[in-house]
Structures are given as structure tokens and as C-alpha cells.
């Protein structure tokens, strides 16, 4: 039943989003405005936009549900998110990226890499990687949001999908990054309020912090035998070292996302939107608090949902949700929180989805319009400003919506499983392709153009290979490994009708995240190729590294 209050709050929320999008549109007069907010964005807006873009519905529903299964050992991820994803990212990466971007007059992340390494190929390839793979990530978020809204408002999935996409399209196409970041700041504020309330309600209901944790610790004997066999030792203990659950918790969830965030192009471009390093310093505390009270809360509430369900139904969370991880958080909210909170949390989830999607659509547009068409292919018309980028945004939205629509209609559960891997595939791919050369671009004087190209291609290809043919979770969903080799992963073989996982010491290869494979390969390729190829002129490096004021090349 759709309550009048729910309708009132949603309409009010959308009205404010529309107003902020319109303000973005009115303030957008140039390409720099459309892509970088005129390089004058307020630190609160920048930090909240960065956080809201990073924390999507899958971080709340998906990872919150995962925390209900794994327990509080997943808190290593929000720690990395705060320390690496905010503090180190803004302090070390942010300052250098902003200054180098300004010196090279770069408007996008691929353009920064392309101009630093004086290579249109790098800019074009980075744009192709983004435009080809981010629709899958966007589709994962869009599908989840549309299903949730369809359920809440009792409307058809395709209607919810269409309405949701049109609302976001309007303010992204017209308002550019200003429209995106203004609305992000509002949406992040809603998320902060909603998730902080969830933290308070959860601890309050379970008798306080220490008591709630103790109750969860005392449930260790209720771990199902199937999970215990895979390494589960209770919800306040780490999984047993070297077991499948340990590898998933540490390599895939913690390192894959925790380190991968540094190379997300839609996040890195945020550093270039502020006026000076002072703004970045001011954004650090805002970002840190935001991540603690969003990502941190989702994991704590997810883990503690086991105590609530044990007390009320005598079951653990995953049993209550009948094995569907993504149902745990919605079920917990429905049963454990008051009616008014469900309205607030619906706005929280809408905000999480809209803020992530708007940035994804925007970067699809800049990748296609600016990086590929205008810069790499050198097709531009005088006086057309950001027309190509606006068409790029529109194309990106259409591809994502089509994916979300057709996959649900045509491929059912198989398609949904593929799309659900969209987030991790994009994170893994960006980490392999961009992280080594991004770090090299900012700090190394010795990387050559050939070295950067070799590193990017080696990282992207090794990451893709690992996800398609080895990493059990994605290779099973993508089906290609089964089609070519008759097994769901090259690291799994059948012995006497039973699956045997290939391992070396404590390493079980089918559970090792691609970031642990592609990063060393990309670094090695970059270093080796740079040793034997032509160096950049000292003038260019000096200019990029702020040693001189003369732009060269």
C-alpha cells in the first residue's frame, strides 16, 4: 500500500532534485563548466558527491547482505574506504591530479592520462574501456533501483525503469557535472541521515554497542555446517585463513573494492573540480564522516541483523531470506524499524542509486563525446561546445536502460546474474587498466609512452581474462568458460564427479580477486617496456611535475 506520506516525501524530494538540476543547467556555460563544474566546486559538494557516487545501492543492499553472511570481518572494507579511499586519495592523489589536470588543461580522467603520456591512443582506449564496461555497472544499479521502486509503488518494472531513467537523464544531459554534483550533495545528505538513523535504531534495539556485539559473538554455534565447512567461525570472527570464505572476504570484497576505488575514473575526475588544495583538505573530514556513517553502518547493521532474526524468529539472516542475500537488508528494515523509517530509507536507497547513476551517465558522455569523438578521433565542430558530450550522455543512458530492460525480459535469472557482476567487473577492470599508469603519471618520471600503453593493455586484458575464465563467481555467471572449456572456471576440475579447486599453499585460485593478478602484471609490463623505449623530453616531464612553467608538446 502506497501511503500518502510516502508520495508526499518522494514528490518533494524529486522537486528539490529538479530544482538543483535546473541550477546546474543555469550555471553551465562552457565545456569546463559541463565537465569540471568550472573548477570551482565547493568542498562540501565535492566530498559528498564523491561519497555518494562511490556508495551505490549495491553497497547498502548487496554488501549489507554480504555482511549478514560473513559478519563483521567485512569492516576491513570501510576502513580501507575511509583511509585509502578518502584520506590518501584526497591528500596524495587529489592534490597532484588537480594541479596536473590544470596544467595540462585536462577535462576528463582519460584526457589527463592521454596528455600526461602524450598519447591519443591512451585517451581513446581508456574512453572505450569506460564506455564499453560502465553500462553493465550502471545497469546493475538501475535494475536494482527499478525493482525496488516497482515493489514500493506497486507499478510495473519497465514503468519504474523508464521514469527513473528519464528523471536522471534530464538533469545529467542538461546540467552537466554541476547538475550531477549539486543533486549528489543533496542525495548524500539524505543517505547520511538515513543510515545514521539505522545505526542508532539497530544498537538501541539490541541493547547498546557492547551488548549487541556480545549477542552476535554468542551466536557462533549457529553457523550453518555448509558455511563452517568453507571457513566461517562466527559473525565476530575472521573466516579461517586460506579458506574460500577468507579469500572472498579479503581479496574480492576488501582488496578488490578497497584498492580499486583509487582508479575509478568517475571519482578521480572529482579532484579536478575544486579550486585549490585547500578545498581538498576541507573535503577530507566531510568524506571521512560520510563513508563511516554509510558504508560502515551498512556492514554493522547487516551483521547484527542475525541477532534480531535469531531473537524474533529463531533463524539467522540468510535462512530468513531463504538464501537470497539481497533480501536480508530490506527484510530487516521492514521488521525491525518503525513505519516512518521505511519512508526515509526508501529515499536513502533512491538517493544512493540516483547519485551513482548520474555520475556513471556523465562519464559515459564525456568518454564518448569528449575523449573519443573530439580528442582521439579529432572530430569537432566550432561553436558546438558540449554537444558531442551531451549526445554521449544520452547514448550511455539508452545503452544502460536497454541492458536493464532486455536482460530482465529476455534472459531472466541468467541475465540478472551477469548484470549483478557489473560492479565488480568494472572495479576490477579499472584497477588493472588504470591504477599502475595513474600512479606512474602522478609520481614517476621514467614511464615512457610505450610503457604506459603496455601497462594499460596488460592490466585490462589480464583482468578480463581472470574474470571471464578463472574467478569462480564471475566465470560461472558469464558462462563463457563453460562454453569453451566445459568447466565453470579453469581453476576448478572434476575428479570422480566432484569439483576440486586448484590451490597453491593457502592460495585457492578460483577465489583470488583479479586485482591481485592484474596489478603485478600491469606494473611489470609498464616497467619492462619503459626500460627499452624512448623517454619523454625533460621539458614535458618538468612541466607535468610542476618544475617549470613552460608547456611542451
Amino acid at each position, binding site marked *: 500500500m502506497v501511503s500518502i506520506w510516502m508520495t508526499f516525501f518522494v514528490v518533494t524530494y524529486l522537486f528539490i532534485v529538479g530544482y538543483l538540476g535546473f541550477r546546474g543547467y543555469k550555471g553551465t556555460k562552457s565545456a*569546463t563548466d559541463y565537465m569540471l563544474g568550472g573548477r570551482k566546486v565547493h568542498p562540501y559538494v565535492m566530498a559528498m558527491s564523491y561519497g555518494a557516487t562511490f556508495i551505490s545501492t549495491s553497497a547498502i543492499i548487496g554488501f549489507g547482505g554480504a555482511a549478514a553472511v560473513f559478519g563483521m570481518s567485512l569492516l576491513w572494507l570501510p576502513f580501507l574506504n575511509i583511509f585509502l579511499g578518502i*584520506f590518501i586519495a584526497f591528500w596524495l592523489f587529489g*592534490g597532484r591530479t588537480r594541479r596536473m589536470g590544470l*596544467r595540462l588543461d585536462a577535462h576528463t580522467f582519460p584526457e589527463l592520462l592521454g596528455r600526461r603520456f602524450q598519447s591519443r591512443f591512451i585517451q581513446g582506449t581508456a574512453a572505450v574501456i569506460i564506455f564499453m564496461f560502465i553500462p553493465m555497472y550502471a545497469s546493475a544499479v538501475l535494475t536494482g533501483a527499478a525493482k525496488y521502486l516497482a515493489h514500493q509503488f506497486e507499478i510495473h518494472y519497465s514503468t519504474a525503469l523508464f521514469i527513473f531513467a528519464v528523471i536522471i537523464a534530464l538533469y545529467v544531459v542538461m546540467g552537466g557535472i554541476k547538475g550531477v554534483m549539486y543533486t549528489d550533495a543533496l542525495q548524500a545528505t539524505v543517505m547520511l541521515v538515513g543510515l545514521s538513523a539505522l545505526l542508532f535504531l539497530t544498537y538501541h534495539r539490541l541493547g547498546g554497542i557492547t551488548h549487541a556485539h556480545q549477542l552476535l559473538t554468542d551466536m557462533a554455534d549457529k553457523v550453518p555446517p555448509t558455511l563452517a565447512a568453507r571457513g566461517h567461525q562466527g559473525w565476530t570472527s*575472521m573466516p579461517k585463513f586460506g579458506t574460500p570464505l577468507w579469500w572472498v572476504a579479503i581479496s574480492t570484497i576488501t582488496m578488490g573494492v578497497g584498492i580499486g576505488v583509487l582508479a575509478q575514473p568517475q571519482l578521480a575526475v572529482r579532484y579536478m573540480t575544486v579550486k585549490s588544495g585547500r578545498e581538498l*583538505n576541507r573535503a577530507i573530514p566531510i568524506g*571521512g564522516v560520510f563513508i563511516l556513517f554509510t558504508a560502515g553502518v551498512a556492514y554493522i547493521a547487516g551483521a547484527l541483523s542475525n541477532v534480531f532474526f535469531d531473537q524474533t524468529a529463531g533463524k539467522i539472516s540468510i535462512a530468513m531470506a531463504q538464501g537470497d542475500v539481497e533480501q536480508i537488508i530490506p527484510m530487516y528494515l521492514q521488521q525491525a524499524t518503525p513505519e516512518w523509517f521505511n519512508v526515509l530509507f526508501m529515499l536513502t536507497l533512491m538517493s544512493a542509486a540516483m547519485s551513482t547513476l548520474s555520475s556513471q551517465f556523465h562519464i559515459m558522455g564525456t568518454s564518448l563525446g569528449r575523449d573519443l569523438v573530439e580528442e582521439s578521433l579529432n572530430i569537432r565542430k566550432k561553436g558546438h561546445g558540449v554537444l558531442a558530450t551531451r549526445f554521449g550522455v544520452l547514448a550511455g543512458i539508452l545503452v544502460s536502460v536497454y541492458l536493464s530492460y532486455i536482460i530482465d525480459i529476455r534472459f531472466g535469472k541468467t541475465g540478472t546474474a551477469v548484470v549483478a557482476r557489473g560492479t565488480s567487473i568494472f572495479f576490477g577492470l579499472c584497477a588493472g587498466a588504470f591504477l599502475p599508469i595513474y600512479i606512474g603519471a602522478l609520481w614517476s618520471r621514467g614511464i615512457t609512452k610505450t610503457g604506459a600503453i603496455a601497462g594499460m593493455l596488460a592490466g585490462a586484458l589480464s583482468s578480463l581474462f581472470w574474470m571471464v575464465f578463472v574467478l569462480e563467481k564471475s566465470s560461472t555467471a558469464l558462462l563463457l568458460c563453460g562454453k569453451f572449456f566445459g568447466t565453470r572456471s579453469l581453476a576448478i576440475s572434476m575428479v570422480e564427479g566432484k569439483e576440486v579447486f586448484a590451490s597453491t599453499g593457502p592460495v585457492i585460485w578460483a577465489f583470488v580477486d583479479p586485482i591481485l593478478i592484474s596489478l603485478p602484471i600491469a606494473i611489470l609490463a609498464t616497467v619492462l617496456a619503459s626500460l627499452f623505449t624512448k623517454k619523454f623530453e625533460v621539458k614535458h616531464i618538468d612541466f607535468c611535475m610542476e618544475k617549470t612553467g613552460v608547456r611542451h608538446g
Partner: protein
Amino acid sequence: MLGIEDPWVVAPYLLCIASTLLCLAWGILKWNKEDPETEMDKQIQHWAEEENQVESEL
């Protein structure tokens, strides 16, 4: 500690809070600290703003 026995799980719980406090302290201490920008960077920033202004007027 805090109702959690495994130190490997207590650690990230406390580290989340500690790293947030680090972010807050950093923001307070560096609130008015300017970038280690060269004069040239300020000049480039100025040119970029002028260029943006011209493009806006066009």
C-alpha cells in the same frame, strides 16, 4: 573488547573510527592551509578562469 573477541575484527572496527578522526583532525589542522602552489600554478589557474569566462560569453 566491545563484545568482540577476535582482535582481527576489533581492529577494523576501531580503525574505522580512528581513520575518521584522522580525517577530522586533518581537516581542522589544514582548514586554511594553501596548496604548495608555485606562482606559475596560480597564473595557469588565472588563465583557465579567463578562458572559461571567454567561452561562457561566446
